């Protein structure tokens, strides 16, 4: 029983950490001389100096920023709710609320990654490839979804 609990919490924390890394470090697009992400574009000029500009003020990139932040908030809230419900739920009860929040967080990550995929050509020019933060966002989505489903199915035992 304790092992199961630990495993579930670890899964949740793994999804949360991936979300944080993906949002903050956010090397979402890379090319040979520049990296571009949710918050700023950095590039190395010809003479070797490395400077960063804030990201363009397009509407879609702001939507992606908002959705990633919301997914982090909801995942944190679901972790909090899990600990709350662990001590207050009756025997045999299900962690519906926790599961709902976690599933919502995974849906937010999914929509953020989809929006970025579809609209990234607006603000990244030239030949570029998707960076590791983008991949982390896509990995965080199924982890969060599975974690949320486990919460919904789980029943509290003594």
């Amino acid at each position, binding site marked *: 029983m304790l092992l199961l609990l630990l495993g579930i919490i670890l899964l949740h924390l793994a999804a949360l950490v991936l979300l944080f890394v993906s949002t903050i470090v956010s090397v979402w697009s890379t090319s040979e001389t520049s990296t571009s992400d949710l918050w700023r574009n950095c590039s190395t000029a010809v003479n070797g100096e490395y400077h960063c500009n804030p*990201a363009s003020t397009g509407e879609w990139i*702001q939507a992606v920023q*908002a959705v990633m*932040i*919301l997914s982090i*908030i909801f995942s944190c809230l679901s972790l909090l709710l899990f600990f709350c419900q662990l001590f207050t739920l009756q025997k045999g009860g299900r962690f519906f609320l926790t599961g709902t929040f976690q599933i919502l967080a995974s849906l937010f990550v999914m929509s953020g990654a989809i929006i970025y995929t579809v609209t990234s050509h607006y603000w990244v020019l030239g030949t570029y490839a998707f960076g590791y933060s983008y991949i982390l966002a896509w990995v965080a989505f199924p982890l969060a979804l599975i974690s949320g489903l486990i919460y919904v199915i789980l029943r509290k035992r003594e």
Partner: protein
Amino acid sequence: FVFLPSYRLICTQTCTQLCSDFASCCVNACVCLSVKFIPDFFLPVPEQSQAIVIYTGWERHALVGSDIRLSCSFFSWRWTSEDVTFSWTYRPDGSRDSISIFHYTGGVPYVDNKGPFRDRLEFVGNPGRRDGSILLKNLEFTDNGTFTCDAKNPPDIVGRPSSVRLLVFEKVPIQAGVITGAIIGVVLGLLVLIVVIYYLMRFLVARRVFSLSVSKHGKKKKEGSQQRQGPVPPADPSKIKV
């Protein structure tokens, strides 16, 4: 205001002779009982010219084809003199040279008639009110750059010119973070609303259930007392039959 102190000799005794200025009078003709070093800003103002401070904006945004008013005003301890001058210079983005585009002197404004702003520049300021603003009409993308205003109010001539940066856009962009904040705010607001409604419903339903149960309890009491009287009369005929 930054006052750079420099020190002067000042006599603490009046001179008996007329002198051209205080310090030499003190040294040559008067006997000074004591001499002090006084920083200049304690001396009365007419002895000095002080710094003039010029104010323009920091950055201006505008759409292509629109007009924009670049404001320039100054602060000076002295009254606005008749010889007040305003001059504007323009430095395009990426260039190191600046050209002069406007000059106001002797009560007459002189606008650019050869440079990039010919026929597009107009003086809309009021020098009497210390306002040296200019109006740029029909902006183009090539007007991106830095505009510097320099004002002089004789004898207040020492001052630093102030610059305003002009940015011309195709369409005015939304500021960074507005949409982000809006989406986050709306979703969290909905969440709070749902929680509040849920607890309100629970509270209302609980109250209704409570009031219903109270009235039911009252009804049950009345029904109970009636039932006790009920069965007694039918019992008599059966007893008589037997």
